[in-house]
């Protein structure tokens, strides 16, 4: 009994931070209809600012190139009240900036662009703090006493848990009253229902939205400051608290503050209990069952709420970027493949490694082209699926001794099975809610399977034997020489084949069906398209391609480790695919070039900036920023921008100024923009 209370209280702290982040998510959603995935990252950012002020007496500046810190003349740290005020002021600024620079320009953008942008903020904030403070755990002095308050039986209940719970309850009630009774709250609710009518009544939805974002940031910031001392402060820890927070907001159907907070607190306590179970029950999985719980809550909540077909008038969201059919191309892919092969035989090991990383990244981006570009599903767990293939490969090749072509094939099929399982909720849930499911699924699989030594060999990972084709050793490294040309060529050839297949798909009946489902599920069903089957096919194919990436990662590392497949890698992979161009094969290739450790960043970091230790954080900063800019300025990504530029150039060359004669491709874009302008 005492244990029960102790562990529930342990969980109460995480429940409280999830609740405070969730309150911010709800406030932001009410103000502008955006689910902000970066809400946890905001809490983390403010917590770091507080830590820096309180402990180091400095104010951290996030922008690389500028001095890292402003010294405030207090080498032993500022006093608590000043640190709190400065931290919360930072939260206010952050809220205003998010509104003005990101969410306001995206008011009428499709869900994908909004998710992409908020994920961009998440990556950016996370990378900024990792860049300044590193990824080690920091200890933050607590604002509230953690010493024993009163005891129940043998259990001592610390004050901080009590205060946190009270804070959550007071804020929930306060927000409820604010939105229920105040003029501000009523006008926000009115604007959410009918923006035009609210404008006609003289309200400014824009100002309301900015106020909501400020409020949301303040809530997250307060949560960060209060909870950082209890849980360990790292750039990723608080950032990922967005997952239980989203689970709770889903249960509350994106509306009720009270239901959300109660769910978050109960969820936190249940997670606390689950952390205790492995020590009590020998058969209980040693790790991750506490992280599995939010995911199960998400799935059950969404499945109960979701609908197998969207109802009348639900399709009023903005369009996804266009996915154009291209004429069959053989020359360009053949030339690109040949160039890559030549590069493998001529370049130094560093470039070859970067090229291998790019090829692997291109596989993942291709899988996202199928999943998001064609089928219209936002997926935030692609690297998790790749990871499943990697671990299955390790098990099959090492433990069971199954030889080369068969073992990776089976591993990819294993990834496909997991992808199909994730497709089941996608039958009833779409848009942002589905993005939440995939995020939760990725996190749960990572914590439950990848981190469980019983399944995967834990931190030590699992060995993967080298590839042998007809007695030929096609290993990634021989002796000290890494990124062997033969390995690279094998990867490039498989990539070329898969890319050709995806290109073909867009011009085929199945590809048209994918796009029909992406555009309008109801109309697709009425036109005789089996929507469920198309979703299973799309998820299955995308997962298989992600599986190929996972297998190559496994062969490259020879020791499969969880860090390549963690959920934040999945998230930044979506960022890169989106920047490259999520709707085309050429976009996936550009995405590959841009991916982590790939050819573009190798050039930038090693050749231009000269080898730096925090290259990974710089990459994340650039891709986070790039993602936000892409979402706002250029939704078709680099590949789309290149296509449009090419068309414009061709027309200029052929017909003189573009105003003289408009070709069809330009017309195809113009009316859409006009319509969006009318809406705006």
């Amino acid at each position: 009994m005492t244990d029960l209370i102790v562990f529930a209280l342990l969980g109460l702290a995480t429940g409280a931070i999830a609740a405070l982040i969730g309150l911010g998510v709800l406030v932001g959603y009410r103000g502008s209809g955006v689910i902000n995935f970066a809400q946890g990252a905001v809490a983390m950012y403010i917590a770091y600012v507080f830590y820096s002020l309180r402990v180091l007496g400095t104010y951290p500046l996030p922008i690389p190139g500028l001095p890292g810190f402003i010294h405030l003349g207090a080498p032993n740290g500022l006093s608590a009240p000043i640190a709190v005020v400065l931290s919360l002021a930072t939260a206010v600024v952050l809220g205003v900036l998010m509104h003005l620079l990101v969410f306001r320009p995206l008011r009428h953008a499709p869900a994908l662009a909004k998710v992409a942008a908020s994920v961009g903020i998440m990556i950016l904030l996370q990378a900024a703090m990792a860049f300044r403070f590193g990824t080690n755990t920091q200890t933050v002095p607590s604002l509230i006493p953690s010493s024993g308050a009163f005891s129940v039986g043998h259990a001592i209940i610390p004050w901080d848990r009590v205060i946190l719970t009270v804070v959550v309850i007071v804020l929930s009630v306060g927000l409820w009253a604010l939105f229920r009774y105040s003029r501000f709250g009523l006008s926000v609710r009115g604007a959410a229902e009918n923006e035009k009518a609210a404008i006609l009544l003289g309200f400014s939805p824009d100002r309301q939205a900015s106020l909501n974002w400020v409020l949301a940031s303040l809530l997250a910031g307060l949560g960060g400051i209060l909870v950082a001392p209890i849980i360990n402060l790292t750039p990723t820890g608080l950032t990922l608290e967005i997952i239980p927070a989203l689970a709770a907001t889903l249960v509350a159907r994106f509306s009720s503050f009270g239901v959300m907070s109660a769910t978050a607190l109960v969820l936190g306590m249940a997670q606390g209990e689950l952390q205790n179970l492995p020590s009590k029950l020998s058969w209980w999985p040693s790790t991750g069952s506490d992280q599995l719980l939010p995911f199960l809550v998400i799935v059950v909540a969404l499945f109960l709420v979701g609908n197998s077909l969207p109802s009348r008038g639900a399709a009023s969201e903005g369009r996804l970027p266009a996915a154009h059919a291209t004429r069959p191309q053989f020359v360009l892919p053949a030339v690109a493949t040949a160039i890559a092969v030549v590069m493998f035989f001529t370049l130094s090991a560093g470039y070859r490694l970067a090229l291998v990383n790019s090829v692997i990244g291109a596989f993942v981006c291709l899988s996202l082209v199928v999943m998001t570009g064609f089928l219209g599903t936002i997926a935030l767990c692609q690297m998790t699926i790749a990871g499943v293939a990697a671990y299955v490969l390790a098990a099959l090749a090492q433990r069971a001794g199954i030889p080369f072509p068969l073992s990776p094939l089976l591993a990819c099929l294993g990834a496909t099975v997991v992808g199909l399982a994730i497709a089941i909720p996608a039958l009833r849930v779409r848009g942002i809610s589905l993005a939440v499911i995939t995020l939760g699924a990725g996190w749960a699989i990572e914590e439950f399977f990848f981190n469980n030594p019983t399944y995967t060999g834990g931190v030590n990972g699992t060995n993967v034997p080298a590839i042998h084709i007809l007695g030929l050793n096609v290993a990634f490294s021989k002796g000290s020489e890494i990124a062997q040309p033969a390995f690279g060529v094998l990867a490039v050839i498989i990539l070329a084949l898969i890319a050709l297949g995806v290109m073909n798909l867009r011009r085929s009946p199945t590809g048209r069906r994918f796009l029909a489902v992406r555009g309008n599920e109801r109309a697709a069903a009425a036109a005789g398209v089996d929507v469920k089957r198309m979703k299973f096919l799309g998820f299955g194919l995308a997962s298989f391609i992600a599986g190929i990436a996972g297998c190559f990662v496994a062969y490259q590392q020879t020791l499969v480790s969880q860090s390549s497949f963690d959920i934040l890698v999945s998230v930044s992979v979506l960022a890169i695919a989106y920047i490259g161009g999520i709707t085309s094969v050429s976009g996936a290739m550009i995405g590959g070039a841009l991916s982590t450790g790939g050819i573009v960043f190798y050039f930038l970091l090693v050749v231009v900036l000269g080898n730096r230790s925090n290259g990974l954080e710089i990459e994340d900063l650039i891709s986070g920023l790039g993602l936000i800019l892409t979402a706002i300025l250029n939704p078709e990504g680099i590949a789309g921008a290149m296509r449009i530029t090419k068309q414009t150039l061709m027309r200029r060359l052929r017909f003189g100024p573009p105003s003289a004669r408009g070709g069809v491709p330009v017309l195809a874009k113009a009316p859409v923009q006009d319509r969006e302008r009318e809406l705006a």
Partner: protein
Amino acid sequence: MSPLLATMALTVRYGGVVAVSGVDLSVEEGHIVGLIGPNGAGKTSFIDALSGMAPSSGTIRFDGQDLGKRPPHRRAKAGLVRTWQSIELFEDLSVRENLQVALERESAFDLLVDMVLPRLRRGAGHEEAIASALDLVGARDLADRYPSELSQGQRKMIGVARALAQRPRLVCMDEPAAGLDSEESRRFGSRLRQIVQQGISILLVDHDMGLVFDVCDELYVLNFGVLLAHGPTSAVRDDPAVIEAYLGRSGDDEASLAESPSDGLSATGGPE
């Protein structure tokens, strides 16, 4: 001979609201049957129920089969297709591709075949079928355009063409003439007759009474989800109960729906 479509006691409920209540309706092969009623009478809900887009109870017998429990795409494949009140084209696909989606059939391993040989499954006769469906709505020259480049009226016609491309037995049309001017509406009426001559039956929901009285062989009148009247067009047109439901007063001798402005019925009367 049994009718092509027969519903028995078809009922649609949304939560506590009964949108359609126990409607018996049948469509004979080769007929154009009109389904009219004031705004909110349950016409679109009835079509939603037929096409599987709304949960319903009661029976839907179509071409000798019971369709009531089948998912939407299976009903479409059985030959019962629909068009939409708001225009629901696939915005990412060209007009031709919109019609191709409706024509093409799924098969085992189609994903693999399509990735390797995308042209292999190009169906025989699809080009002709697309051309003739577009001809029926007078939109042959729009094949390579994208929906966003089309006018509202053109988009409606492409929606009808897409339904026709599925080679249906029965097309349920939800306000296809809304937004057409009287000249366009007359032309659309003659197109509907051409469609019927190709062996396709039509269930027509529209507020354009000129069109409805002109082309329909039979009329059903819905009011508050309940069937108010049913019979040959001329009989229903002069039914006092129907006139009352539409105009909101007991029919004096002069009032006849035929004399009302062709598109104004929903605006002039009906219970709000």
